[in-house]
């Protein structure tokens, strides 16, 4: 299995170095898909398309990132939305979690 690597910037995800407000805004949560040796690559691509309504090219990009780097940050959302996406991905039996954005 590919080793876990430092997350990279993906298309569609805006990363900022600005300080977050101390209060008022909900912190962001990263939805992460982790590599495993069992799920088919085409299946993972299909699931990303189905869950996020992504075009095939973007879904393949993230699938390959999972495969080669061990994980891919799929999106950054509010806690509620991140939970929703993790649940959707787990319904498809992908190894997905959510983590608080540092």
């Amino acid at each position, binding site marked *: 299995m590919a080793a876990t690597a430092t997350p990279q910037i993906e298309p569609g995800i805006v990363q900022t170095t600005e300080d977050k407000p101390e209060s008022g805004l909900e912190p962001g949560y990263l939805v992460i898909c982790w590599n495993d040796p*069992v*799920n*088919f690559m085409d299946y993972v691509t*299909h699931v990303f398309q189905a869950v996020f309504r992504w075009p095939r090219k973007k879904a393949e990009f993230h699938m390959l990132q999972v495969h080669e780097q061990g994980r891919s940050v799929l999106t950054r959302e509010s806690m509620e939305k991140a939970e929703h996406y993790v*649940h959707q991905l787990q319904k*498809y*039996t992908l190894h997905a979690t959510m*983590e608080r954005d540092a």
Partner: protein
Amino acid sequence: MKLVQATKTGIVFRLGQREKHSLVQILKLYPCMPPAHHRLSKSGRLPDAEENQQLLNEALAEQRADNKKQVQTLLADSRRFAITETGTRLSLTRADAEWLLQVLNDIRVGSWVNLGSPEDKPAELTPANARHFLAMEMAGYFQTQLLESLEGGT
């Protein structure tokens, strides 16, 4: 399992008698994933982590119970699982096919977990691991056919 027709609304397959028997036996194994296998977070650094994990477990358990009922309904539905002179004609809506993909992957990944989550295929088949390995391979076969039809028919 051969694709007969794929349209924007539905997919039709033809299955031989042995294939149909294999598919039915495989689907009867559902669910294979151990309960509470999925974690909401790796780090556990979420607000109300335990409570949210419990909610996720409940949601997935409810989903599995619904899916199991739906599998039984599918297997008993003579319109979708129609017996013909040459075998069986399996007619699925696209939503059915998407759902069946989830069910088959649960069986595939669950069987892999039951094998001990190996990195590679088992070096030796034993009475203990053979059924999990067979279920994993068969679910993968049907899953691939389904996936190809979903991708190709759009």
